[in-house]
């Protein structure tokens, strides 16, 4: 209720701001002359004239005359003729000042190059404004995290994201363990993942946020609830987009880390380009290994002498994890026929032991998961294709992802590593199985955008995702199934920029088409009593329309209000619609999940070149319906997916950052989410209607501080000490109001610290880091109270070599 009011108040503010801006525009004086020009960066010599500096501030010092550049670095404003000092400033660049005589009549357009200010690797937590601001200008509610601050840590991307507002990554254990990513309370299949705008599945199924080393990413964007059409995704909760280095610098970034629990991690990211021919080759790879043999505290183990279970500490003994990926892309940039043309391929592999079930009392000692995948892809980008301002971005790929669950051990394991021989497989409780899943996937994307003028632009995005789901059991040929599913998502967007770009609106429309083809024998008498819906839908086509708008109003140069809305879908997965031909029955009438998502936020920044302050706050509402959930018919021993639950999530979140020169920076964020059950069945409310959903963190926050000194141990050196902290408030495992409060299962509050000491020399070419995670050895849990690692130490060596081509 309060958040609804906040949202309403925000919308009124935006309306008032629009009126005031319109009024100001009408009062422009007539005795002025126009000054225009373009601001570029001098940082990258490979690009003639350098890339534009979007949204730099241009002004006549000591006067109120000035403007903010557009996305192309262009500016134009009016001022009376006279002598002035022209000042151009932008975060990350040295402020430019030069005398300027403004004559009456026409003045020639100016071309100004800004020199990049020296930045430290660990200086900025959030992407510098030249990237975030572009994201914000469209009004979408987005977290954009620059990974520089983490480059010397052994963190994976999920650990980086876990430290930002509104996001919870729930990982069940150590390196490579299962994770569930939640954006503003929506999680699971409602969140989709991309790398440079390409679905992560297209890169091979092994690549996930819990194994991509931070060094492979330049930044990470998280769109919350309202998603631009460019992603072509049925992402009801939001999108995570990993942005890799896209410049044409030559560089090599190689790192190796080692530490507790026999953990080793290596990563290489490199690029070579030849300016004269435009040839470009990129090679990336990583390798992760860990035994994950951390100590489990106070786990239950049976003592035959005492004839009862007792609590003891034991190391994990069957949780080894290995993953590796190699990826190469080669092609050309800055050619007449293409701004970028790359052909790429990747191969990845993963093996991991499975130590526990959903609770730590359920132990496995032989079960494994194995996976491998490969992919080939083509990327093409061209601006001003055929006509000026028509830009094209095309992508196509084929990937094949295979994974297997091996459950062949007839043993019951205990935490001390001992076991009893049993008469059933340890995971399924049934017969031995080696279950294989193969998912060949074709992905294609075409994105066209056309800028009619500075104020109006249009874009269209088409995404095709076609895959088959091929499942069989090596030891039981009766359980095979093969289904095909094709998803086509088309998006249309119109970008409007008014009042000198103070107000931007992006309304959009999305079309979702889904086509199915099942191998299921619908005439089999086994299925027929339990099939739900029209069998014709088994091989049918479904379509849905979604829509939304994202708006932003800039109050001052660094202050603005954002509001966005989307009615959105999460499409059905093949096994949800068609079952698995074995234990999951089809439901041909299953509808996609849908949600009305609202965001309202504001941001403000302030400061000089030495002091910088930034604040961001937002509120959100998610009204999700027709949640697809498995319904287990225990009497029959089968499962069927149904559109059952509805949920309303309201929340607020905020983040503050401050930095002083290159000596100190500090950030803190906090999130509050209230997810309430709104499920109504056949017109009747569930007994839990209106109650807070269980087993979800609802208050959490992070803080981080870094202090560092340049040139302390010689020129080009830097030493830095960093501290970060995460707090997750306690939450109930089950429904909060039900059950005896003195014995309810609670996931306790968790306070986890991390410490990092980094020494860099030769201008950050060489870096040595010592990291201590969880130094207080505090207990950390996942959602089912599975224990996560305690205190751990890591050493990381990193070399970063770069050279302009």
């Amino acid at each position: 209720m309060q958040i609804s009011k906040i949202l309403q108040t925000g919308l009124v503010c935006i309306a008032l701001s629009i009126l005031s801006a319109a009024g100001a525009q009408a009062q422009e004086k007539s005795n002025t002359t126009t000054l225009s020009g373009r601001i570029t960066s001098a940082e990258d010599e490979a690009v003639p004239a350098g890339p534009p500096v979007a949204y730099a501030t241009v002004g006549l010092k000591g006067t109120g005359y000035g403007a903010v550049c557009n996305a192309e670095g262009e500016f134009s404003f009016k001022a009376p003729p006279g002598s002035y000092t022209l000042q151009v400033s932008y975060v990350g660049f040295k402020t430019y000042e030069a005398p300027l005589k403004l004559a009456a009549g026409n003045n020639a357009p100016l071309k100004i190059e800004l020199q990049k200010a020296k930045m430290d690797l660990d200086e900025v937590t959030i992407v510098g404004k030249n990237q975030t601001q572009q994201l914000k200008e469209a009004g979408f509610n987005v977290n954009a995290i620059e990974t520089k601050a983490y480059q010397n840590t052994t963190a994976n991307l999920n650990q980086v994201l876990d430290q930002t507002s509104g996001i919870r990554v729930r990982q069940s254990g150590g390196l490579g363990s299962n994770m569930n990513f939640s954006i503003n309370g929506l999680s699971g299949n409602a969140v989709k993942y991309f790398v440079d705008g390409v679905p992560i599945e297209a890169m091979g199924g092994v690549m996930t946020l819990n194994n991509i080393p931070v060094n492979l990413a330049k930044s990470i964007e998280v769109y919350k609830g309202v998603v631009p059409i460019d992603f072509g995704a049925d992402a009801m909760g939001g999108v995570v987009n990993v942005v890799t280095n896209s410049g044409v610098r030559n560089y090599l970034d190689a790192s190796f880390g080692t530490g507790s629990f026999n953990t080793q991690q290596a990563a290489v990211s490199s690029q070579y380009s030849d300016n004269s021919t435009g040839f470009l080759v990129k090679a990336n790879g990583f390798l992760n290994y860990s035994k994950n043999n951390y100590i489990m505290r106070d786990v239950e183990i049976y003592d035959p002498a005492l004839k009862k279970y007792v609590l003891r500490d034991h190391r994990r003994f069957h949780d080894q994890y290995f993953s590796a990926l190699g990826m190469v892309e080669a092609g050309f940039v800055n050619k007449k026929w293409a701004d970028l043309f790359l052909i790429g391929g990747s191969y990845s592999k993963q093996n991991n032991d499975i130590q526990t079930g959903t609770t730590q009392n359920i132990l496995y000692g032989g079960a494994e998961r194995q996976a491998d995948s490969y992919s080939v892809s083509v990327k093409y980008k061209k601006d001003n294709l055929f006509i000026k301002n028509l830009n094209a971005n095309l992508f196509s790929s084929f990937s094949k992802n295979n994974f297997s669950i091996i459950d062949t051990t007839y043993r019951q394991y205990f935490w001390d590593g001992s076991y009893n021989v049993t008469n059933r497989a340890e995971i399924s409780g049934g017969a031995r199985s080696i279950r294989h899943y193969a998912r060949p996937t074709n992905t294609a994307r075409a994105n066209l955008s056309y800028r009619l003028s500075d104020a109006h632009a249009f874009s269209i995005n088409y995404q095709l995702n076609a895959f088959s789901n091929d499942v069989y059991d090596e030891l039981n040929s009766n359980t095979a199934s093969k289904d095909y599913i094709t998803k086509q998502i088309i998006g249309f967007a119109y970008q409007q920029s008014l009042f000198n770009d103070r107000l931007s609106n992006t309304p959009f429309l999305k079309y979702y088409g889904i086509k199915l083809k099942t191998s299921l024998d619908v005439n089999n008498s086994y299925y027929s009593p339990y099939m739900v819906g029209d069998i014709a839908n088994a091989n049918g086509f479904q379509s849905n329309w979604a829509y939304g708008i994202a708006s932003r109003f800039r109050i001052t140069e660094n202050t603005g209000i954002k509001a966005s809305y989307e009615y959105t879908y999460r499409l059905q997965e093949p096994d949800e619609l068609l079952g698995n031909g074995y234990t999951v029955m089809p439901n041909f009438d299953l509808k996609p999940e849908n949600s009305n998502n609202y965001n309202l936020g504001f941001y403000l920044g302030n400061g000089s070149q030495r002091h910088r302050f930034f604040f961001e706050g937002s509120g959100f509402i998610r009204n999700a319906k027709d949640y697809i959930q498995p319904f287990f018919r225990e009497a029959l021993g089968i499962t069927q997916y149904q559109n059952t639950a509805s949920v309303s999530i309201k929340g607020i979140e905020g983040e503050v950052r401050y930095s002083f020169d290159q000596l100190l920076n500090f950030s803190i964020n906090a999130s509050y989410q209230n997810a309430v059950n709104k499920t109504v069945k056949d017109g009747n409310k569930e007994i839990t209607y209106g109650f807070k959903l269980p087993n979800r963190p609802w208050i959490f926050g992070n803080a981080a501080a870094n202090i560092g000194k340049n040139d302390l141990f010689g020129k080009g050196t830097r030493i830095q000490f960093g501290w970060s902290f995460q707090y997750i408030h306690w939450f109930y495992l089950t429904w909060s109001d039900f059950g005896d409060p003195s014995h309810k299962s609670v996931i306790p509050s968790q306070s986890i610290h991390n410490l990092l000491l980094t020494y860099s020399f030769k201008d950050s070419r060489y870096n040595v880091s010592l990291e201590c995670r969880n130094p207080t050895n505090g207990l950390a849990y996942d959602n089912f109270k599975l224990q996560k690692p305690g205190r751990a130490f890591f050493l990381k060596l990193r070399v970063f070599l770069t050279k302009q081509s």
Partner: protein
Amino acid sequence: MKQNIIKLLSGLTFLAIAAAFLSACKDDNGTDPKVDTSKDMFWLYSRIGEYPDQADLIAEVTREDIEDPAFTFTLKGNGAEVQQKITYGQVLKDGYYYCVSKDQRFGKYKIKNGQLIAEMEVPYTRLYNSFSFAWKNDHTLVIFGPDGNGDKLVYSEINTNTLDMKNGELAIPAFPAGYDRVRTQEAVYRDGKIFLGYQVYNSTAYNVQPGLRVLVLDASTYQAEKTITDSRSDNFGDGNGGRFQSGILKDKSGNIYVSASPGYNSGNTTSYLLRINSGATEFDPSYEGFKSSSIKLSGIWDLGNGKAILRTDDSALGTGGSTFVCEHNVFELSTGKKTKLDIPAGDSGSQMNVAVDQENGKAYIMTNASRSVNNNIYIYSISAETVTKGMIIPPGYNWLLRLDYIGSN
């Protein structure tokens, strides 16, 4: 001006966040209706929420409350969370639940003061559940089921005072052509013998071998003395062991009454109540206490006076296609006379919903007939043969899974 806007906005936002946090941090003040466990006690097992937020709770309810038509049952501040440890289908005796737990143990549990208490537990994986069981005596429980491969039947004989076990395998007739799996149904002990129903099926097409099969075991050696077969049905009692309903009744004379209803994917359509007479090891061919091809016999509870509560499921009574729309009847075992009780028909989800206290002459019938209006517990007086309304159960429970009479706890 700009500074003022910044200060104002940041101040307001911090206030909003702080207010939200403070309100959120307040501890929940749920009502705490502590139950007086010195009184006669019932355990009410319910399931709420949808997966993955489904939760199972067992609440303690006193006889005084359960018989009070003005008392409204609530789980607010009341009930033990059990879903991480056990699932319904547990064996009840003398105030304890016995079952194979979800974390691979066999345990002896009770509910006390809003908590599931494990009195004793031992590691256990020989059987996946304890749905098929028989009591050899007050301290010896035998549980049956298939092994992991599903092609053998095994058992565990458990001393419930110590949880010491004796394990073994049962000899069953060879699978006929086209069948490769076996599972168990209900079991009952009588005079040194255990009658164990079992079913043979095909692991590909899931069709079951037609007919009902009962192993007659020597309860000392676990050797099968004979196999009873009958072509009228596929199920010996509840088809899933005793998990969902009580499907077998042994009267004081030693007659065994068996609900034999159409099973899952069996092809049969008729429900019967069959009888194995005292001392016999065959069904009495002259006895069909209940027979219907339209109404399914789903449960039978002994009233101790030659009568039983008979639960019948009639999908024609319901709306929305539910096949579990139940009625309750008083049934004379010898004559087959059936008298419908004045209890609302309909079922929005209930299983083992009858608890009988023979000593005090009452049967307690829990209904979950409606999702929109209040449901009740109904109390049937065995001597007066009357039904009175008891405790109110509000609508909205996904499942009311069990009602168990415990006595003094």
